[in-house]
């Protein structure tokens, strides 16, 4: 296996980021102490993250370099189905380069491009979302030179209440374990969970254990990957108190937390 520390994410060696977005009905609830719904918080967070990724990909002459390829898998917006979360000109696409993302925003609002709108509709087929993400990652890894690229990063943003996780959440855990077994020459795929909860608990970023008062926290914490050495190094540089025992789990992260969280997962 190659050393991830030596790899620079670039046009030559892009990185796949798969956002799994919970659009189930429960996301209509308020987020923590905020007046906003969880769905709105999630949509804002993702749009901000695309924007941050764009900032990391823009060259001196204003051209965007395809350093990232991004998938948005929405679950819950169409009953038990998992659908592409892209809208407008990007509708029905699964993986979109950062260049195409910025060429086709849904709209510009308050001087910020918007790609994802908040939705809160149906069930929470989280297991199926991971299953789709796994298939997509397999295809991506086996395409072109992607085996020589940064392993895919799967970011699940949810309130955690899956409706298809099976008895003892066995189905969900099995599916996530399968994704973690996928790998490029630079290591295994990374699963991160951002837990958007109605519970007004203390924010937690990359904890070594979890105690939030939300019964679903433990599950999301358990299925999250440990931060790899490279991520730990970048997080420490950004001022986070993390170690190799830290997990890619954020509880009640606000927009800034989410952006920092993803920045940590995206090598500099």
């Amino acid at each position, binding site marked *: 296996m190659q050393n991830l520390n*030596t790899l*620079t994410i*670039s*046009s*030559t060696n*892009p990185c796949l980021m798969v956002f799994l977005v919970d659009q189930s009905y429960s996301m209509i609830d308020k987020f923590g102490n905020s007046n906003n719904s969880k769905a709105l918080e999630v949509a804002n967070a993702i749009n901000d993250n695309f*924007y941050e990724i*764009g*900032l*990391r990909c*823009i060259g*001196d*002459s*204003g051209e*965007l*370099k*395809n*350093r990232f*390829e991004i998938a948005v898998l929405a679950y819950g917006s169409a*009953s*038990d*189905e*998992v659908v592409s979360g892209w809208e407008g000109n990007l509708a029905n696409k*699964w*993986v979109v*380069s950062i260049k*195409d993302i*910025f*060429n086709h*925003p849904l709209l*510009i609002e308050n*001087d*910020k*491009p918007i790609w994802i709108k908040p939705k809160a509709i*149906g*069930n929470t087929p989280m297991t*199926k979302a991971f*299953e*789709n993400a796994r*298939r*997509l990652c397999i*295809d*991506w890894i086996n*395409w*072109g*030179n*992607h085996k020589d690229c940064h392993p895919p990063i799967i970011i699940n943003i949810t309130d955690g209440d899956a409706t*298809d996780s099976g008895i003892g959440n066995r189905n969900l855990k099995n599916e996530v374990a399968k994704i973690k077994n996928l790998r490029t020459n630079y290591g295994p795929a990374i699963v991160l969970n951002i837990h958007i909860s109605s519970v007004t608990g203390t924010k937690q970023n990359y904890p070594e254990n979890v105690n939030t008062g939300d019964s679903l926290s433990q599950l999301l914490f358990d299925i999250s990957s440990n931060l790899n050495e490279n991520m730990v190094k970048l997080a420490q*540089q950004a001022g986070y108190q993390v170690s190799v025992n830290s997990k890619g789990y954020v509880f009640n992260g606000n927009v800034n937390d989410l952006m920092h969280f993803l920045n940590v997962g995206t090598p*500099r």
Partner: protein
Amino acid sequence: MNVKAFQIHKKASVYFKNIQDKYSVNLETETVVLADGTTQSFKSNLFADFLTKNIASEQLLNLENVKKSINISIQQFGELNFELSANPAIAILEKTKIATGSTSTLLAVKITENKLNLISIGDCNIFVIKDEKIESSFPFNNKNELDLNNSFVNTKSFNGFDSLQVYNSNIQLEQNYLLFVCSDAISRFLFDFPDEISSVINLSNHQDFLSFCELNWQNGRLEQDDISILIIADGEKKLHEFLPDSSFKFEETKYFSEIEFVPNPQVETKKTKLTPMEYNDLNNKIKNLENEVKFVSNKLKNIERLFIILFVTLLMALLLPYVLNTGKQFVNLKDEKNYSTKINKDTQSRVDSAKKKNAVKSNNGKKKKIKSTELEKNPKKNDE
């Protein structure tokens, strides 16, 4: 002070004009400045260029003059006008980039009577070479130290040196010193592969330097980054620049990332349950289907009836002539039958009459006896 300057841009930049490493050499003051504009900031090559020129133009290398030069460079950079992208989403990115400023590292050395004065901010490094080996290096002694440094000068946030990691040192050099002033990628390479120092010493033209970089880019030992080496040797004050021709460019590579990746169709897994809305929808569809089936069934029945009527009509049309013909024959036969019946009646009446006559004859004893059987057998004859 004799300086050989070698530079090449990273392949991704394509053109040499896009290199973000900038250097400036002032032979008169024996000052050499290298600045590495950071890729992630806006037009950092321009800021790096201002920095190196302003610092190298100072007679004295000290923190005060460096601070003054940085402020002048920030001012010069701020006076530039940049045209934003026509794409509104990208223009917003550019505005943010401009708002967050341009950043660069810098390393400045001034040699005065074999005494080296060094000021550095960021991850450039200087190596003191002796007998083709690294005798010492500043500010960093190894790659880990270099990687942990995260300091740079930013056009928006620079407010003196308090918040920056500034390395300022004076180093005594030996006679016939040899120094490598390097940007970060080649510094890491020299830490990792110190045996390659002899290769660097022997570089004497741009083509050799280019081959050296390409070889090590290809074998993965050298990072894909701008590469700058300034070799400073004790000797005649002279600058040799080994730079690419103005027309030089790397071939633009068609990256996989420029080809759209389309995954296999995302096969939906079987549904396990329906929502009430889906259930109602499905129920309505089934009811509609049922109604349609009934409607079609009724239509078919009517059509069936119509066909039966048509069939009967056709059959009648076909059979009518025959029926009519048969009717005529029947009528004839009937006539015949009536006629026969009439004859029989006539015959019967004659028989009866004959019987009566015979009865009269027998009664009279003279009348001739006629057999009724003969009359029945041949009524015509009888008639005749």
